[in-house]
């Protein structure tokens, strides 16, 4: 199972390690001991929020401000959980960790890839989450330790995450064979990009789910 999971998460490794290293390099500039970068990867485990943290830390932002801005930045995750309530099974330590480690990339994998029949579904997702966090923590640590010492040319490597999302859209299409969600998502994104460009991610997700629910409600009504 581990081999299969390594294979499945390799594109994420390509994204997380260079991105984590970039975070580590920036974190090093703040002058804190190196292991706090590792600690942030372990506990916060959110790419965008950690990059925002660099700015907030250097500005000495108040903790209330930190809470509100992080919550707003990660608000899209609320909608991720909504679609995997059943999938993540019963409460326990394992589920606690699954919920804790629900990043964009992990969400994309667990909602698209079916667990093989012979393995426990939740264990499978657990190891995907764990391995992904491993890549991230390694990246955060390497970046702060190596800092400017070694010149890496990883430019363009993060395209792996774009490519991953593209492949998963195709896989989603193969699973669902219904053009509706893709049309709703595209139209919502264009609308939000024009009118609320700074809230593109969370705005498009909220709008598309609202449209989805409205369509369902209309359909139910017409069937009376």
């Amino acid at each position, binding site marked *: 199972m581990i081999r299969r999971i390594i294979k499945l998460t390799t594109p994420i490794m390509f994204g997380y390690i260079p991105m984590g290293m970039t975070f580590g390099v920036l974190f090093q500039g703040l002058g804190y001991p190196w292991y706090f970068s590792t600690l942030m990867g372990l506990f916060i485990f959110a790419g965008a929020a950690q990059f925002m943290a660099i700015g907030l830390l250097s500005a000495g932002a108040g903790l209330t401000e930190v809470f509100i801005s992080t*919550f707003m930045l990660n608000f899209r995750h609320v909608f991720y959980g909504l679609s995997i309530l059943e999938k993540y099974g019963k409460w326990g330590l394992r589920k606690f960790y699954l919920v804790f480690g629900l990043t964009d990339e992990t969400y994309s994998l667990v909602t698209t890839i079916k667990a093989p029949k012979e393995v426990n579904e939740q264990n499978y997702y657990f190891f995907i989450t764990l391995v992904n966090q491993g890549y991230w923590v390694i990246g955060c640590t390497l970046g702060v330790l190596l800092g400017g010492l070694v010149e890496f040319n990883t430019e*363009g490597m993060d395209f792996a995450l774009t490519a991953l999302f593209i492949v998963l859209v*195709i896989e*989603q299409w193969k699973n669902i064979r219904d053009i509706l969600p893709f049309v709703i998502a595209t139209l919502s994104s264009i609308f939000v990009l024009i009118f609320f460009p700074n809230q593109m991610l969370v705005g498009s997700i909220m709008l598309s789910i609202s449209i989805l629910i409205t369509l*369902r409600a209309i359909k139910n009504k017409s069937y009376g």
Partner: protein
Amino acid sequence: MVDIGYLLSFIVVMTIATFATRLLPFVIFQKQSKHPMMSYIAKYTPPMIMSILVLYVLKNVDFNSVESINTLAAIATTVGVHLWKGNSLLSIFAGTFLYMYLVQG
């Protein structure tokens, strides 16, 4: 002069705020998870979110610039290889290596 106490409380607050966004739906909606509307949402939301993520990562590409050709070529390669072979890892590597080659070259 670095303030370790500040950094630690900062990390705690950011950890709680991030975890809260991930935990909230499970706490609020877990009881409704068998509701037909929830299974409908569970089925249709992932393809929507995946499509939005693709558009999101591509939104900063300036499609009037020369660099956009690199992006378009890499996307076309990823999609093409995936439709041809259906092997996710192969498609992602093909697109990524081409992209790295183009932007570094």
